[in-house]
């Protein structure tokens, strides 16, 4: 455990998960029998947290499973294996981009554990240009790729290499696409590129990091630099300009230039997020990642964290109003987004993950939680953390009478209600049994 801190985030809980794995899903064993437990009402809560997962009494889906199995289903019958964005994963979870903050210096350890867990992993912007593949330019990126691949089993997982507007200068994608290190991934369909349109922690701004004077001098040609204090220089990327046509054509360009890489698009929580997601899907993106305003491992101005961007909850509500394009003979269902949707933002336990799935996400990203878990134990912290979250997800989804990661839906959520936002607005009709 190092000096890494995650204020406002359930850091202690994640550290316990990283130490104890599945045991951390329950109260400490020593307290059982001598302590009474109830809901913790002190933790900071956002719109997603305020939802409760609400199992029904009657469970026709459980009956289906019972008939299928020939025995009563239990939590362990929940299949978490998932496919999203063209990749496969043992659970509906991936490691989000961490950027180039010093706190992300555990990059290689994280990559190794993510590889061992076969979780798809996004490698963030700036890793290449700042930490500077081969010939010195992209060493840090190559180091993370190599660490991930060394541990990755033959199936599942995959690497998602992000590129932002200014990373394009460093030709991150071209460098990766032509590098022998990723040939195996490309041949097994496990390489993806993510176009970073924006990020949750600072919607409308580009990447920001603090660098020292030497680095500032080295990168002065590439970035805007502002010296805030001796030895502390703010390095700012431009956010990049997007219009409907620019986004559509950039996705086309990715598909044409890198036909063997999957195409992901990461959006910041902009007010037109639903429109942007549809443009990306229609242009052929394999996944759209929504980064809620709650997320972030990197540097952001405090005012952005408190005051800027749609909460993840609202992003998913707007996206949930989209319907899948009508298929012959099959109407779209309310609450299901029109393409593969991934969600990022404060995911630290199974409950939030299942709620995000219920709100339409196909998988959830972990960022800070992954960093804290690796900080707690560089060798097995992330593995134990995912083990605990996977167990929670199985328990929760089975409690809802469902048995696959894609099954949770808006009917599984209850919201205490806010003006203009009744929980009922999300609900879709409950499948009813015919009463004999």
């Amino acid at each position, binding site marked *: 455990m190092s000096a890494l801190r995650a204020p406002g985030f359930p850091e202690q809980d994640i550290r316990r998960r990283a130490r104890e794995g599945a045991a951390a899903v329950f109260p400490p064993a020593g307290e059982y029998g001598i302590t009474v437990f109830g809901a913790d009402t002190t933790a900071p809560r956002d719109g997603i947290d305020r939802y409760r997962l609400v199992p029904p009494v009657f469970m026709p889906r459980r009956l289906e499973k019972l008939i299928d199995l020939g025995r009563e289903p239990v939590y362990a019958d929940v299949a978490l294996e998932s496919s999203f964005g063209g990749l496969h994963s043992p659970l509906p979870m991936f490691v989000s981009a961490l950027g180039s903050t010093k706190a992300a*210096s555990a*990059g*290689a350890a994280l990559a190794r554990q993510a590889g061992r867990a076969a979780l798809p992993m996004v490698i963030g912007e700036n890793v290449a240009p700042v*930490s500077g593949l*081969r*010939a010195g*330019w992209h*060493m*840090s990126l*190559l*180091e993370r790729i*190599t*660490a991930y691949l060394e541990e990755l089993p033959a199936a599942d997982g995959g690497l998602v290499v992000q*590129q932002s*507007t*200014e990373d*394009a*200068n460093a*030709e991150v994608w*071209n*460098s990766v*696409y*032509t*590098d*022998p*290190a990723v*040939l195996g991934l*490309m041949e097994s369909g496990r390489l993806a590129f993510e*176009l970073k349109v924006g990020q949750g922690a600072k919607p409308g701004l580009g990447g920001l990091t603090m660098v020292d004077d030497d680095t500032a001098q080295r990168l002065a*040609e590439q970035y805007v630099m502002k010296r805030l204090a001796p030895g502390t220089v703010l390095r700012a990327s*431009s956010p*990049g*300009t*997007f219009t409907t*046509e*620019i986004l*559509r*054509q*950039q*996705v*086309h*360009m*990715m*598909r*044409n*230039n*890198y*036909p*063997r890489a999957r195409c992901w698009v990461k959006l910041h929580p902009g007010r037109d997020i639903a429109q942007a997601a549809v443009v990306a899907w229609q*242009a*052929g993106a394999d996944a759209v990642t929504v980064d809620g305003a709650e997320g972030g491992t990197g540097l952001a101005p405090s005012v952005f964290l408190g005051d800027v961007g749609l909460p993840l909850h609202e992003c998913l509500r707007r996206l949930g109003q989209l319907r899948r394009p009508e298929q012959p003979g099959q109407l779209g269902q309310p609450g299901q987004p029109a393409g593969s949707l991934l969600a990022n933002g404060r995911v630290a336990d199974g409950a939030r993950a299942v709620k995000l799935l219920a709100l339409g996400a196909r998988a959830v990203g972990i960022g800070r939680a992954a960093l804290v878990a690796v900080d707690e134990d560089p060798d097995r912290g992330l593995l134990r953390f995912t083990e605990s979250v996977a167990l929670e997800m199985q328990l929760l989804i089975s409690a809802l009478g469902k048995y696959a990661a894609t099954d949770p839906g808006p009917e599984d959520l209850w919201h205490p209600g806010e003006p203009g936002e009744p929980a009922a607005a999300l609900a879709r009709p409950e499948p009813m049994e015919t009463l004999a």
Partner: protein
Amino acid sequence: MTIMKDLPMPPVAGSPPAGMPSPREHLMSPRTQAVLKIQQALVAGARAVLSGEGAVELFQPLIGPVTDPGARGAKQVDVDYYGHRYKLMASAILYKQASLVAFDKVFFIAPNVRLEPLETSATHRHLAEFHQIDVEFAGASRDDAIALAERVVRGAVRHAVTAQGDALRLLGRDTATLEAFVAEPFKVVRHGDVIRQLGGAHGDGTEIEWPAEERLSGQASAPFFIVDYPKGSRGFYDKEDPARPSTLMSFDLIAPESCGEICSGGERESNYARIVTRMRETGENPAKYAWYLDIVRQGIPGSAGFGIGLERLTRWVAGLGSVWEASAYPKVPGVVSP
């Protein structure tokens, strides 16, 4: 960040293609020698046509702050230019457009370097280092460029047949067949029609995949042009058809006999604001292109042009199985070679 101590060496990505001889064997082979002589005749033929049209031959810079970003998935090669990051030329397109402020008709015959994706080592038609006959005419339309490309190819082929008939026969190439290929006007088909014909995985806004293009080429009885590629498949400099948004005024020339594309071109965008916008659509940062945009902002003529891949043209004319045979020192992507 810890620096990894044992960074693995790149695995041997590509072993040399089957049948590829050692550099010495390759140079000493009568086949190679015949191919190189045919290549020179093709260059002489092309040069004669272009000079006859009044075009000025220029030397292309080898390095520059930016180069053609339009190459599909290929990596550019960095050069440390006194602390500035320069590039080896991937194509001379930006310099061709700029040169039109000096001369109305220009051409380069010059080397280009593109570190192509490793998968291209198996296409028989990609080299990391190759040459182009790169042509640009001010005030020309797409149709003008198509007609010019046809004249250049026809002139080059006829000159090679006349000047290197023995070399062609040594390679088993029937010169009468070659002459027949270029006897008739080349047909022009639309990209959309080709995509419909291919069906399957080819979606809107996408390039024709290499294996599909090879099939089309195999079915053709003569070279033909494909026109109207979609935006998102080409560089920012190809002009979008004002009458048909999302369609570029671009073209490819496809050789028969499974050789595939041997030439790309189009009518160019010359409007500053539209070029900047198109740069964003292709994911480029306009700031990188400062010198080019400065010239464009002050005005460049509208133009059209093309680049003919010399080794690809040679492969087709000489009837070779792979493009590497058309280079004295072939660089097959990923294969370590001199």
